[in-house]
C-alpha cells in the first residue's frame, strides 16, 4: 500500500505548504527562501514594509506570468501548484483579492461573476447555474456587503470608487467560496466606513474549511479579521512569526528592527 492510498491525518490538515520559495521578477530575486504552512480554517497575516515581497508572494501563489519560481515548492491541498495554470488554481479553490482590481469595460459585474462561477463549477464537474438560480444566489451574498443591483449591472470595476472595488472583490470571494483566499492589501485605499464593511464582510466568510492569507502593510484590517498567526516578511523571507499581538507590536514599533534582522 502506497502513501497516497493512506495519508496520515497530519498531512490532510495542511492546506498550504510553502517550502524554501525563491522567486524572481525580470531576473531580480524577490523571494529568497520563504517558508509558510497553513491549516484549514486558519487565518494568517503577512505583514511587511514596502518592497519586502508581499505582492510578489500573492502573484506567485496565483501563478501570474513573469513571476518566476527559481527554487522551492508550493503544495495546495497536497497538490503541486507550480504545475497548474492560473485558472486551474482557481478551480482548485484558490482566490486572490487584488490590491488593484482590474477594469473590464463592457462586461457587467453580474456577467463576470456568472462566467467565473460557472467556469469553476465546470472545472469541478458540477452543473452550471442557470440565470435564475444564479441571481438568487448572488442576492444572498450582496446584502451583507451593501452592494446594490445597480452596481452588479455596471461594467466590472469601471468607474467604481476604491471602496466599491474592494467590496466587489469580497463579493467575488463570497460567490466563489474558495478554500484559500489570499487578500493582497485589501485595506489599501479604504476610508474608515469602507474598511468596516470590507473587514466585516471578510470575517463573515471565515469558516473551518476556508483559510485566509491576509497580506497587509498596516494592522487596521486585522482589527476586524483577527489572525491566528502573524508573520513578518522582510527582504523575501519570513523573519518573525507570532500571534495577533505581533501585529499590534509592529504597529507601535514599525518594521525597522525586523528589516535589520533580515539584512
Amino acid at each position, binding site marked *: 500500500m502506497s502513501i497516497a492510498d493512506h495519508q496520515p491525518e497530519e498531512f490532510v490538515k495542511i492546506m498550504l505548504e510553502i517550502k524554501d520559495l525563491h522567486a524572481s521578477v525580470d531576473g531580480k530575486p524577490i523571494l529568497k527562501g520563504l517558508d509558510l504552512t497553513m491549516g484549514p480554517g486558519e487565518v494568517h497575516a503577512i505583514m511587511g514594509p514596502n518592497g519586502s515581497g508581499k505582492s510578489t508572494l500573492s502573484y506567485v501563489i496565483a501563478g501570474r506570468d513573469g513571476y518566476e519560481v527559481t527554487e522551492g515548492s508550493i503544495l495546495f491541498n497536497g497538490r503541486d501548484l507550480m504545475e497548474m495554470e*492560473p485558472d486551474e*488554481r482557481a478551480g482548485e479553490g484558490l482566490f*486572490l483579492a487584488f490590491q488593484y482590481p*482590474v477594469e473590464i469595460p463592457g*462586461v457587467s459585474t453580474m456577467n463576470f461573476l456568472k462566467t*467565473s*462561477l460557472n*467556469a*469553476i463549477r465546470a472545472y469541478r464537474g458540477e452543473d452550471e447555474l442557470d440565470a435564475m438560480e444564479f441571481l438568487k444566489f448572488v442576492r444572498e451574498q450582496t446584502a451583507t456587503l451593501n452592494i446594490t443591483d445597480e452596481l452588479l449591472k455596471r461594467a466590472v470595476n469601471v468607474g467604481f470608487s476604491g471602496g466599491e472595488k474592494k467590496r466587489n472583490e469580497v463579493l467575488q470571494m463570497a460567490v*466563489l467560496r474558495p478554500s484559500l483566499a489570499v487578500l493582497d492589501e485589501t485595506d489599501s485605499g479604504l476610508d474608515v466606513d469602507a474598511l468596516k464593511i470590507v473587514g466585516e464582510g471578510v470575517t463573515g466568510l471565515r469558516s473551518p474549511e476556508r483559510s485566509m492569507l491576509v497580506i497587509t502593510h498596516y494592522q487596521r484590517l486585522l482589527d476586524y479579521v483577527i489572525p491566528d498567526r502573524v508573520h513578518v516578511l522582510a527582504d523575501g523571507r519570513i523573519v518573525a512569526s507570532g500571534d495577533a499581538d505581533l501585529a499590534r507590536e509592529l504597529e507601535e514599533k514599525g518594521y525597522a528592527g525586523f528589516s535589520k534582522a533580515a539584512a
Partner: protein
Amino acid sequence: MAVTQETVQTVQEVEKYKYGFVTDIDTDTAPKGLNEDIIRFISARKEEPQWLLDWRLKAYAHWLTMEEPDWAKVGYPPIDYQDAYYYSAPKSAEDGPESLDDVDPELLATYEKLGIPLHEQEVLAGVKNVAVDAVFDSVSVATTFKETLAAHGVIFCSISEAVKDHPELVKEYLGSVVPYSDNFFATLNCAVFTDGSFVYIPKGVRCPMELSTYFRINAANTGQFERTLIIADEGSYVSYLEGCTAPMRDENQLHAAVVELVAHKDAEIKYSTVQNWYPGDENGVGGIYNFVTKRGACRGDDSKISWTQVETGSAITWKYPSCILQGDRSVGEFYSIAITNNFQQADTGTKMIHLGKDTKSRIISKGISAGKSQATYRGLVKMMPNASGARNYSQCDSLLIGSECGAHTVPYIESRNRSAQVEHEATTSKISDDQLFYCRQRGIGEEEAVALIVNGFCREVLQELPMEFAVEAQKLVGISLEGSVG
C-alpha cells in the same frame, strides 16, 4: 431522382433557347470565363425579361472600361476574372454527404460551439438524404412564413421570383441606389448576379417577424454574386437579418454582392449582418474575397436606415454599408464589429451622405485585430450644402491582440454646410495582461477570457443586434479569436 430529372429537363429547355449554349455545358455549370454569351446564358437560365438582360449587358460593357480599385489597405494577387465560373446551379442532393459522419469534423465542431440544432447542421452541411427532407421542410416553413407575411401584404422572395412576379417593383428600384456604373465590383455584380432576396413592405405595415431563419437556411445555396433589394414603403418597418452563422467552405474565391435599401417617408429598415465566410487557414491559404457594396437611401422625410454588421470571416473584406440621407430629419446608423485573425485583412466602414435638413448619422465601429491580420476602418461623412443642422457622431475603437497585427482608422470628413456638426472619436487599445490575469484568477480559461473581454469591447454594437442573433454573434466572437493568444 426527381431532382435529377428536373435538372436534365431544364438544361434541355435551355438548349432550345436561342441564346443558350448548345455545347460544352455541364449539367449545372456555365463554362469558365466572362463574356456577353455567359451573361445571356445566365439571363436565359433565369428566364429574365429583355430589359433586365439589356441592363446586365450595359453593366458588362461598362465594367470592361473600369479598373479594379486599389485604394483599400488590402493586398491580394491579381484576380483572373476569366478563370472563374459565373453560373453554377445549386448542387443536387446526389453530391451531398451521406450523413453527418461524412462531414468535416472541424466544421461540425464549429456548429456545435455555435449551438446550431442538429437538424439545421444537416441542412447547412448539405447532407444528402436528410437534405431532401430538409428542403421539403424549409419549403413548408417558408410557405407558412409566406402566408403570414402575405396577410400583411409583405413580399419576401428571391429576386429571381420577384423579377417574374413583381417586375414593376424590381424595374423601378433595381439599380436605383447602387447604379450599374457604381464601382468595379458592383458593376460586375449587375452583369452576372445570380440570386438574392427581395423584400417589399407596404405602406404603414410593421413587418410581423424578423426576416431571418428562412434566409439562413436558404443561404447555404446562395451563389457568389447575390443581389438583395429591400423597399420599405411609407411608414413601414422591417428588420432583416442576413448571413450565415456557420462557416461556409466555399471553393469560390470571389464574393461580390450588392444590397440596396430604400426607405420612404417615416419608414425604418434595420439590416443586420453576421458574416462568417471561410477566412482561410492559419497560414493565410484560401478564404473568400468579400467585396460587397451595400447602400441604403433614406428617400423620405423622417426615414431611418440602420446597418449592424459583425464581420468575422473572409480572407479579405471590402465593405462600406452606406446611407444617403435625402429626406429631411432622416437618420442613418452604422454599428460594426470587424474581427481579423491570422492573415485576414478587413477594410470596412461606412459612408454617410447628408443631403436633407436636420439629418443625423451615428457611426460606432469596433475593430479587433489578432495574429498577423490588418483591420482598417474607412469612413466618409459628407455634409452637402442643403444639409442645414445635420449632425454626425463617429466613434472608432480598435483593439489589438498580440504585437504582429495592425489597426488603422481613416476617417474622411467633408462639410459644405456651416451649421452641420461632425464629431469623431477614436481609440486604440490592447487587451492587457492585467485583464487576462484577473479573469484567469477567477477560473476563466485564457480563450474564454479573451472572448469575454472582446465581447465587452463590442457591447455597444452587439446590443443593436436582435436578441437571438446577439447570442450567436457573441459565441462567434470567441470562436473567431481562438488561437490568438498563448
